[in-house]
Each structure stands twice: as C-alpha cells, then as structure tokens.
C-alpha cells in the first residue's frame, strides 16, 4: 500500500518529471496518468486535518479534507484529465508543465488548512497560469499576459497585506471564517475578488483568456476563478456586499457578451457572469445558497471547459477567432460532431432541463427566493436569459450557421475545415457526458455537496418555468437575429483604466522623467568630480575656499563698478593662482604639522562626543 500524498504534490512532481521524458508516447501516457493517480489519491484521502508541518512557529497545513474541499478537489482533477486529453496533441512540453503546476497549485489552495499555505499556492497559481497565455507566442498574448500577471500580483499583494494584518491582530493563521469589517478583512476580500473577476476588477479575465493557447484556455477557465469561489465559501459566507457584487457581475458579463465579436472573449464574459451566481450564493450565506455555489462551480467547470474546447476546436481548425471572420463558411456541414458537443455545453450553461446547469443554477436562484430578495432574484434570472441568448443561440449560430451580410464577400478558404483531432473530440465527449450525467442524475453531485440538500430541481414548476423563459428568449433572438451578428469592434472595459493611462505613464517616464534623470546624473557627476579633486589635498581646503570666494567677490565688484575690462588681467592672474593651488599635491615634506595638532583635534572631538552623550543621558 502506497501512502497517500497531498494531491498538489502529485501534479507538481509531474510538472518536474514531465520535461525529462524524451519519448513523445511515453510523455502522453504520463500526462494522462498523473490526473488518474491524483483521482485515486483523492478517493483514499480520509476526512480530517493532516500533513501539518511546523515552520517558524506556524503550522502549515497541507491537508484539510472535508466535504467542501473534496467537492472542489474532485472536479479539479476531473477537468485536469479532460483538459490533458484535449491537449494531448500539443508537442510543446512547457505548456503541459505549466498546466500541471497550475492544476497542482489550485489543488493546493483547495486543501490548504492555513492562510500561509493558501497564499503560497495562490501565488504559484498566478505565475504558472500566465505561461498558458504566453505560449501563444504572439504580441497580443504577450501583452495580455503581462497585464494579467500584474493584476494578479497586485491582488496577491493586497491579500498578503491583509493576511499579515489579520495574523498580527488575531494571532491565528487558521484559514476559515473571517469576520468582515476592518482593514485586514477588506484587503483579504479585495485580493479574493480580484481573482474572482468581480467588476470592476474583472477585466484581466476577458482580456487574457481569449489570448491564451487553444488548449491552455481550457485549464484557465477551470481553476483561478473557481478556487476563488472556494476560498470565498470558506472565509466570507454571508457577507452582504458579495450578494450585490455577484448579481451585478452576472448581468455585467452578459451585457458585454452582446457586443463581443471574439468567440472566446464572448465565452470569457460568460465566465464572469456565471461566477456572479456563485459569488451571490456565497453572499446569501444559507446552506442552500452555499450548496448552490459549490454545485454551480462544479457544473460550471465542466460545461465551460466544454464550451472553450468547442470554440478552441473551431479556432484550431480554421485559424479564425472572430464571428465576422467565421460567417458564411457553413461550418455546421464540416464539423457536425464538434457542433453537437458544443451545444451540450451551451444547453448546460443555459440551464436547459436535463443538463447540469439546470440543477445548480436554479439552486442559487431558489436560495435568493427563499430569503425574499426580489431584486437579486430578478437580476439572476435576467442573466440566465442573456446566457442562453449568447452561448446557446448567438454564438453557435454565428460560428456554424452564420450568413454573410448582404453586399459583403468572404475570402476563399485555403484549406477545407474538418473535424478537429480525435483527442479533442474525445475530451469534449467526456465533458459532455459528465454534463448530461450530472444533469440527469443530480444525486451524484448533491451527495458530495457540503450540506445536505433539500432541493428538487425537477418539479413541474421549475421545468415549465425554465422552458418558457428559454423558448421566449429564443423567440426574441429570432426577432433581432440581424442585429446580433458580430461587429468588427472591440469593447472598452475597465482595463481601459490601466491600458490607456499606462501608455501615458510610459510617455511620462520616458520623456520628462528621463530628462530629469539625465540632469540629476550630470549634476551629481560634477559634484563627485569636484569632491574628488578637493579631497586630493584636504589641507589646502581653507586656502582654496578663501581664494575662490575672494575671486568671486572681486569679480562681482569689478562688474558692478564697470571697471571689469580694465581689471581682466588681474582676475586672470587670480584665477590661475587658484588653479595652481588646486593642482598642488599633498606632500608630507611640505605639510609637516606638530603632533600636538592631531591630539588637540582628537580631544575636541572627544569633548563634543561626551557633551552629546551627557545631554542625551539627561
């Protein structure tokens, strides 16, 4: 019997060993084996708190295993496996290494039992994930990656500051419920909501995810925001501000998705929208709403990975990522399997009955109804409409069936589009299967939720209500079908506040500040040169000073009395003498002073020192 180890270490060890495997087949087997080992490891992990290590007087806890952390652990490992299958054809080892590190650190966050362990894995997560963006290797990805990492470093700093204040205030490093109120908790919450992409701190997500590699973005959708939902469930359940932030965020993402032309960016805005339900569920703070958040995170990871895999397959095959570039290509004829699998994800996110979004999203909405929160209820409902409108109708229509507007032509395709590689389809198939499985048998999911579930999604009321909502949304979509096509535009979001001023800052630094730097530098260089030349012979300092000022005063006086020209020779004479004095080198034989002078200076200094000492003593 092999001992169980922290699941985070399995992936991190995998990340270290992976580049050592030279044989490609071997590497592919290894890639699939690691998530499987981790899954078995999870199954054997008993409930409780273990893997406690003492470090500088603090307990670092790597294993805090209860129902909540297990639920996130399961779905993380499952999506890791699915994502690895999807990425199997990628030859660049670095991408897989980054993905393994990223997955491992996300699992580390989930099973962390103290706030320092949480922080360490939190930062590894941010740093490893940026490579999934950078491996795209174009300028847009590089720039977006830098913005991504800077936002996350800012969030990490806020979190660290909050943690330090929290620990020094309370003395406890426990990673659990934190009373909201006061600077420490606010900073910690700020760090968290930046990672959860809560507006106005959400722009990094829609900025960076669509620029990532096709396979990397599948991992990105799963871990960062959802591990944040997990830490929010742990630390800030029932915080009122989260209810409103969540509801606003759900609608905000939807509103921006209307305008979006880039297919993965549209889906990224729907991540923001969907995480809104989870954040609102955390804020509502009842057992039902927190169950709903957990369940929705679980389902969301599966269907959002599926949707990104579908969009990624289209990008992989066609090389096009915008609706305006994809229209008129009749892709539904060329890649019908990818279309059907994508639609399963689309129905899931739209909460169509029998798909998994239906069993989790309705839970959060029902929780808001039970607490009598009409505005929250309506906002979340409204976001559901928008979700179906975009991911269920507009996006598939635009990608697979889109017609060319009148008067426009499309450029001919160089290569005929086909279905994506088999491993991509298998990965999509697995995710689609899980979406339907959890949708049809919600018990599987409900049994692993942190609290016992007293919610029945499949009542006649729920099903009919949801069908009405979705069908009439489709009807309205039909009315506006021509207005909803992609436009070759981009939407400015809150990233404007660091992108545009960023350019300004760059100009400010490289022009006026650079100028100031050069001036200061030349000034100090001169100073140093002067001091250096004076220190060659310090004994002459008084003489040089006297001569210098004498020269200055005399020349001023001459200038004032208009006799300047007549006395020019005299001034020159003085100047050359000054130079001569400056040039004189120290010579022991010339400057012989009695030893008494040295003693006198020492005594004077000693006296001054004693004086200061006694004064301070009093």
């Amino acid at each position, binding site marked *: 019997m092999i001992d169980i180890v922290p699941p985070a270490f399995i992936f991190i060890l995998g990340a270290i060993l992976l580049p050592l495997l030279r044989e490609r087949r071997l590497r592919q087997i290894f890639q699939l084996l690691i998530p499987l080992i981790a899954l078995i490891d999870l199954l054997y992990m008993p409930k409780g708190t273990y893997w406690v290590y003492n470090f500088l007087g603090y307990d670092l806890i790597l294993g805090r295993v209860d129902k909540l952390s297990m639920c996130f652990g399961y779905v993380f490992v499952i999506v890791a496996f699915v994502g690895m299958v999807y990425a199997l054809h990628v030859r660049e080892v670095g991408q897989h290494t980054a993905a393994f590190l990223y997955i491992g650190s996300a699992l580390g966050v989930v099973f962390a039992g103290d706030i320092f362990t949480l922080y360490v894995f939190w930062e590894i997560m941010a740093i490893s994930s940026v490579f999934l963006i950078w491996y795209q290797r174009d300028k847009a990805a590089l720039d977006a990656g830098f913005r991504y990492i800077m936002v996350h470093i800012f969030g990490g700093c806020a979190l660290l500051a909050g943690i330090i204040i929290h620990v020094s205030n309370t003395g406890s490093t426990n990673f659990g419920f934190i009373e909201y109120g006061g600077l420490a908790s606010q900073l910690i919450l700020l760090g968290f909501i930046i990672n959860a992409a809560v507006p106005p701190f959400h722009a990094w997500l829609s900025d960076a995810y669509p620029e990532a590699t096709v396979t990397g973005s599948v991992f990105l959708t799963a871990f960062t925001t959802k591990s944040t939902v997990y830490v929010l469930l742990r630390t800030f359940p029932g915080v009122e501000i989260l209810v409103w932030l969540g509801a606003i965020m759900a609608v905000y993402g939807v509103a921006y998705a209307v305008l979006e032309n880039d297919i993965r960016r549209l889906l990224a805005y729907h991540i923001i929208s969907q995480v809104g339900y989870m954040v609102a569920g955390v804020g509502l703070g009842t057992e039902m709403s927190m169950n709903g958040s957990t369940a929705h995170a679980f389902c969301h990871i599966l269907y959002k990975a599926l949707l990104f895999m579908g969009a990624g397959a289209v990008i992989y095959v066609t090389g096009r990522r915008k609706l305006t570039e994809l229209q008129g290509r009749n892709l539904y004829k060329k890649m019908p399997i990818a279309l059907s699998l994508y639609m399963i994800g689309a129905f899931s996110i739209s909460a169509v009955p029998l798909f998994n979004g239906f069993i989790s999203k309705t839970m959060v909405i029902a929780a808001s*109804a039970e607490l009598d929160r009409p505005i929250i209820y309506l906002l979340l409902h409204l976001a559901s409409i928008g979700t179906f409108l975009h991911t269920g109708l507009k996006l598939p229509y635009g990608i697979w069936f889109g017609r060319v507007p009148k008067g426009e032509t499309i450029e001919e395709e160089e290569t005929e589009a086909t279905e994506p590689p088999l491993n991509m389809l298998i990965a999509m198939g697995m995710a689609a299967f899980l979406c339907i499985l959890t949708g049809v048998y919600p018990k599987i999911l409900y049994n692993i939720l942190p609290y016992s579930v007293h919610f029945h999604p499949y009542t006649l009321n729920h099903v009919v209500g949801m069908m009405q909502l979705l069908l009439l949304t489709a009807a309205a979509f039909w009315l506006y079908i021509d207005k909803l096509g992609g436009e070759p535009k981009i*939407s400015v979001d809150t990233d404007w506040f660091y992108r545009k001023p960023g350019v300004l800052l760059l100009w400010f630094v490289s022009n006026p500040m650079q100028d100031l730097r050069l001036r200061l530098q030349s000034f100090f260089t001169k100073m140093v040169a002067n001091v250096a030349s004076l220190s060659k012979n310090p004994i002459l300092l008084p003489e040089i000073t006297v001569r210098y000022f004498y020269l200055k005063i005399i020349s001023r006086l001459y200038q004032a009395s208009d006799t300047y020209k007549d006395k020019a020779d005299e001034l020159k004479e003085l100047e050359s003498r000054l130079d001569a004095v400056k040039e004189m080198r120290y010579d022991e034989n010339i400057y012989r002073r009695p030893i008494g002078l040295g003693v006198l200076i020492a005594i004077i200094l000693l006296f001054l020192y004693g004086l200061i000492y006694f004064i301070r003593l009093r």
Partner: protein
Amino acid sequence: MGRKLKYIFFISIAVSILVGFFIPSEHVHFWWEKIPAFDAIFGFLGCIVIVLGSKALGHHGIQKDEDYYD
C-alpha cells in the same frame, strides 16, 4: 427542414405556456409568480432589454475600433 423547425418551435412555445396555466404554483415567494406565464413574458422582454440596452451602450461609447489600444 427550416419550416418544420419553425412549427416545432411555435408549438413548443404554445405548449409550455398552456401547461403553465394548469400546474398549481407552489412555494410562491414573490407576487409575480402568481401571474400565469410570467417566465415567458420575462424571457421575451428581458431578452429585448438586454439586446437593445447593450447595443445602445455599445454604440454610445463602449465599442471602439479594433486598433484602439495599438
């Protein structure tokens, strides 16, 4: 095909709304849940609000040319 799909679509809308009239509403939390076919009305109007609202915002400032940040 297209025509058939249209009929199925309209029939399912009609059926879902009709069924909604006959099932007893349970767990009523808000007054609007008593309105028959509220979800249908909300879905239709909500969708229009989202489309028109976002497009209006988009065309009045949010949408820029693709090289805006370059």
